[in-house]
């Protein structure tokens, strides 16, 4: 339970961090909150030569409005998702998801950018970037770019991030008056990884849904948008029949993994139950 020996470098700027990574021959890991990385090092699932601490890089901090987006700095801690007024006002789905992320002491350290980069398919925040149509800002040796959440999650713990790149911020479209959101998950115990979880963001005219994005987590190798299910809901209001149709459509969107503990049929059932509850709430005003 002790990490293999490594060298440690505390970077003051993004350039220093990128330079250190390159000079370690990419046998390096960036560390921010470390709430997933430190256990991985302690269990020797990972053993880099160099750990680059990015938590003192001020460019990665802060939450502010920028154009039609809320720019959430990569180092924003999970607990700040609960305490930061701009998050509550302009990204309320993240505010609603935050209490479900791990335990309070983990939320005091873990960072939003770190969670998105880790891309754990059972984590809340990566899935919420999909529901929010967020864009992930990445910096690396070849410069800076923005990747849509839809294109970011590639496979199990695999993202569009290339070696030596790091997330600088996540851009979330500002929440609008004609939008509604819902978040919920089913877990055996509070704070445990969810058996299945979901976040959704709908744009409405009165009771009619003009657009909706629904994203599940703990259902496969990546956070998963259920586009077929979304399509069944667009253009109508959320009556009982429409919700039932959406629940039925879920089977075409989700292929839960084989698992003795949670068989695919059980997970699909739980996803349907969760979707039904959440759409009911969304119809009642979100």
């Amino acid at each position, binding site marked *: 339970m002790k990490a293999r020996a490594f060298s440690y470098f505390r970077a003051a700027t993004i350039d220093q961090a990128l330079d250190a990574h390159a000079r370690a021959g990419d046998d390096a890991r960036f560390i921010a909150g470390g709430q997933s990385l430190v256990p991985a090092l302690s269990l020797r699932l990972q053993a880099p030569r160099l750990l680059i601490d990015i938590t003192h890089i001020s460019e990665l901090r802060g939450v502010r409005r920028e154009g039609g987006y809320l720019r959430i700095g990569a180092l924003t801690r999970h607990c700040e998702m609960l305490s930061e007024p701009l998050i509550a006002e302009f990204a309320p789905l993240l505010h609603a998801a935050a209490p479900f992320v791990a*335990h309070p002491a983990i939320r005091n350290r873990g960072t939003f950018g770190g969670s998105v980069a880790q891309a754990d398919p059972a984590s809340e925040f990566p899935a919420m970037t999909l529901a929010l149509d967020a864009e992930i800002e990445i910096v690396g040796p070849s410069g800076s770019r923005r990747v849509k959440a839809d294109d970011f999650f590639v496979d199990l713990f695999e993202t569009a991030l290339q070696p030596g790149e790091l997330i600088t911020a996540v851009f979330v479209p500002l929440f609008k008056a004609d939008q509604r959101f819902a978040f919920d998950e089913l877990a055996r115990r509070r704070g445990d990884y969810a058996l299945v979880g979901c976040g959704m963001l709908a744009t409405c005219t009165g009771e009619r849904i003009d657009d909706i994005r629904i994203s599940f987590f703990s259902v496969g190798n990546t956070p998963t948008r259920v586009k077929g299910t979304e399509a069944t809901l667009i253009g109508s209001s959320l009556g009982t029949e429409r919700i039932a149709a959406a629940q039925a459509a879920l089977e075409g969107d989700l292929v839960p993994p084989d698992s003795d503990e949670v068989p695919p049929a059980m997970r699909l059932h739980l996803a349907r139950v969760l979707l039904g509850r959440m759409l009911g709430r969304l119809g009642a005003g979100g």
Partner: protein
Amino acid sequence: MSGFDGSLLDDADETVRVRFTVNGRKVACEVAPRETLVDCLRNALELTGTHAGCEMGACGACLVQLDGKAVHACLMFAVQADGATIDTIEGLTESGVIADLQAEFHRRNALQCGFCTPGMLVNAHELLSQVTRPSRKDIRDALSGNYCRCTGYEAIVDAIDAVAKARSESGGVT
């Protein structure tokens, strides 16, 4: 601020000097980068009230306050805490801020072996500093990352609930 010195890569086991303020006192110690904060506190500083349990952030026995917030001392390396202010169960005890919680844990038998107790107290202290009158559900939620294999939790929830009531009835003055 200096940039990256490539010679750093040559000897990963070389110790580095870190400085913290621990329980109000400035200390410096030599640590290998891979040494966790909990090991540093227990071995170098002999503050053994912080317990190393699962060493992977699941059990909550190693909670300390880092810059005023409860964190797992097993989920960070001591080098990451360079420059920080750390309060362990020893410091919180000496300052008296958790004296009422400790007395209530004692009175209600909210511990048996006591291994989890320092982490429970650090967590309870943070909860009550944020929420004046948490519900029993709030208390259970807050304790979801603290394992106790002896008590079944009921007495721990009772103790925290009782302290929250007593503090709010005395006007929040502790």
